[in-house]
């Protein structure tokens, strides 16, 4: 699946590392190698983040939920696309988000970190617990709307007093 950058390793010696066929049934003899292969960037790790899908249209964002190395450019080469996120609502007033939960589970199992926006979306979806920043944002917005409401009320009252 991944191109072997740099050293040409002899993967034959890995065969001795797996569990012997004598123990266990066939289903568990597959050794998962991805966590070994992920250590190619020095100190790099895999993240699940939003990448702008660069449709080269101004003012029309569209994000891809993507598993990529930490060091890569935001819109650069990624390991795998795990979904999409469209921040602008459609005719039915919906923001469409898609997730490939099977593969997300795989990458999280491999040790990938989701970034905050992805964690927020997953929390809204119910896959993760709700992100604390989501709750904070909701509270802040409510405070803002209340402020505007009271502000307009006071303004109206003042005008009535003047008149």
């Amino acid at each position, binding site marked *: 699946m991944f191109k072997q950058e740099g050293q040409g390793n002899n993967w034959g010696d890995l065969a001795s590392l797996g569990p012997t066929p004598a123990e266990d049934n066939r289903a568990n003899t597959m050794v998962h190698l991805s*966590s070994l292969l992920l250590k190619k960037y020095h100190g790099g790790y895999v993240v699940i983040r939003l990448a702008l899908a660069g449709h080269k249209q101004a003012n029309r964002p569209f994000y891809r939920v993507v598993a990529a190395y930490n060091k890569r450019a935001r819109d650069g080469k990624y390991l795998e696309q795990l979904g999409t996120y469209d921040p602008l609502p459609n005719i039915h007033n919906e923001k469409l988000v898609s997730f490939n*939960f099977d593969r997300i589970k795989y990458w999280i199992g491999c040790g990938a970190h989701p970034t905050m926006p992805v964690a927020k*979306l997953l929390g809204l*979806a119910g896959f993760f617990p709700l992100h604390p920043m989501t709750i904070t944002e*909701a509270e802040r917005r409510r405070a803002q709307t209340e402020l505007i409401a009271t502000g307009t009320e006071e303004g109206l009252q003042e005008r009535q007093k003047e008149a």
Partner: protein
Amino acid sequence: MAALGTARRLLRTYSRVKNVQKSRQMLARCGVRTLCSATQDKALSDNAKPQFTDPAVQDVLTRITGLDLQKVFRPIKEELKPPTYKLMTDEQLEQAVELATEQAKKLLQMPPVLPERKPINDVLSEDKILVDLDTAKYVFTDITYDIPHRERFIVIREPNGVLRKATWEERDRLVQVYFPKDGRKLSAPLIFKEENIKMVFSQDRHEDVLDLCLVQFEPDSSDYIRVHAATYEDLDKHGKYELLRSTRHFGGLAWYLLSARRADGLIVDMLKRELLQDAVSLVSLFHAVHPHSESAQEAASQQAAGADLLKIYAQKESQRSGYIQLALQAYEQLAAKSSAE
């Protein structure tokens, strides 16, 4: 040297190596259009009401559909290609005709008749803290490739904080967005509205409407059932059964009329076109579907068969009994004349 380094790293991480279970088997992705192929082995018992999918019922319905090759393979609007001519012997011609009949049978496979689906009203969680987070809803779809569309998770987070499952219409639309199907539109074509559908019926294009409906809607959606019911009603009113004969919709038409007990027009039409066998099998199917009606009990008591079945049905059940009896007499006279010759 490099190999040593990787070997050391491998040995270090070996303790963390997880044995992964084999990913679950690639389910054969059930096409959403599961066409009836008579897999159940239920005998037509008197206790269980015969369903559309029973093999016996399917046999009868396929038989009355007929197999007019000329109509099945009539030219559909396709790309213009010059015709190909082949020189064949008589045997090869017979084989070609056989192949054509098999392909026609596949083309004539009946679309399923299912009861209407129950609406989904499942709420997964209500988070009052999230009220006023956003003015738009968030729709989350699961894009995993190998799950059937019926089992996909599609949830919606409303602006009032409620996390609920998507309704059937929303599900259809979103599945079409992420897994588009040929010919399906995101919003239903305007032809399915009441006024437009009447205009199309006046042009005798019931078959096109039914084909479009098959492509656009799920077989158990309310729109599908409504359009089909409207089409069948219109056909019954004007007696235009010939339009659907030898197409895949004929079985559905027959089943609908039988369930509604209004098969008289169809039987009269069959007798007019001298299809006695079809009429007889239709009546026997009627008796199977409604075993408690008078004519069914009469027929069972008399063990009638053939034209007698029709006479019993004409006397007991139908509203146009006079017409059926006249037609029967005419048919018998014809049969007598042809046997005399």
